[in-house]
């Protein structure tokens, strides 16, 4: 009987821990999305004040161009940075999911989700070059 109680207590502890991890992950994702929204909003307000984006109206976008624009707080570059952060939010989602499966001790899904992350990073790399 005591044995069974101990086992139940152990299970309860794990599920409580899982719930805490899930809430923490939810908060991380929320913060990630809010950060990108705030950067976009700042850039957008700056555009209203500056009246121009400070970016070429068409053609390829380079990291150097955005970085240079950020140094002089050009609204277009700030908005592009916000959009780039937004693009990274699903990647963040995959990363925290790996951690969630790790806490759950689900090694099969730690592997599966890691595979998704590797494929995704590969795609991000192709996209840049």
């Amino acid at each position, binding site marked *: 009987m005591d044995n069974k109680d101990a086992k139940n207590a152990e299970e309860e502890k794990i599920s409580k821990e899982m719930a805490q991890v899930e809430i923490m992950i939810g908060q991380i994702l929320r913060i990630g999305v809010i950060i990108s*929204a705030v950067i976009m909003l700042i*850039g957008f307000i700056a*555009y209203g004040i500056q009246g121009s984006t400070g970016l070429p109206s068409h053609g390829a976008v380079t990291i150097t161009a955005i970085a240079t624009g950020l140094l002089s707080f050009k609204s277009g570059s700030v908005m592009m940075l916000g959009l780039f952060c937004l693009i990274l939010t699903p990647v963040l989602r995959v990363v925290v999911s790996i951690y969630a499966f790790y806490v759950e001790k689900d090694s099969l899904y730690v592997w599966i989700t890691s595979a998704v992350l590797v494929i995704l990073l590969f*795609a991000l790399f192709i996209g840049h070059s």
Partner: protein
Amino acid sequence: MTQVIIMLAVGLIAGIAGAILGLGGGIIITPVLTLAMGINIKYAIGASIIAVIATSSGATIAYLRDNVLNLRVAMFLEIFTTIGAILGAILNGILSPVVLYLIFGLLLIYSGYNMIRKLRAGSEILQRVHPDPIAEKLELNSSYYDKAADKTVDYQVEHVPAGATVMFGAGIASGLLGIGSGAFKVMALDTFMKMPLKPSTSTSNLMMGVTAAASATVYFFNGSIQPLIAVPLALGILVGATMGSRIMQILPSRWIRIIFVPIIFYIGLQMFLKGFGVNI
């Protein structure tokens, strides 16, 4: 200034609808941008990719703990979708999109027909006597809490290989044709793998964000993403999708399906006709 307000409003509506239906909102955004506002299709596609990610991420943050989507199904199938998306991007210019338009157009029409059948049948069968062995091995069977029905619904997942094949094809289609493919994902989950509609749409929501992120950098660096179009749209969508995700939970599944049927028929017909070079 008017353009900004229109973008925010379009984003808000597309975000609400997208989060409820598990779609990227491309079917709302692309026509508004190209037809109503006269924006170049290249920039409309760039804005559409951002819209997909904003819908997906906005829906994600509505709840700290999401008890509806199936994370295992999403991650397992994401392998097939992302590989398909990369392959599609590589095959661009080699593989003829005509065949893909015809196949996926027909599949969506079939899916719409199947949804009508489910509506007519009333209740959905969620438990089989013989559970699918692959789904058991991959621990895909799950349950979700349905707020509208106020109960926990247990369900089993079936036909994993068929679902994975459709997801792979959907990945190729999104890489090759530059479309969000949320409709394909809901189709694979709901029609082929027999998941209930709410977990299907919210799992699709998560997946389409990840798939879109895979191709988004291409659009980001080639100049397709115009900040003045994409930023107000994305801000509107983030708010809309957070609302839509909450609305979805309290809507009865039947209503969601009723909204879904005409949309899926429309996208299916549009794709099928595009295969013959007809644009509607």
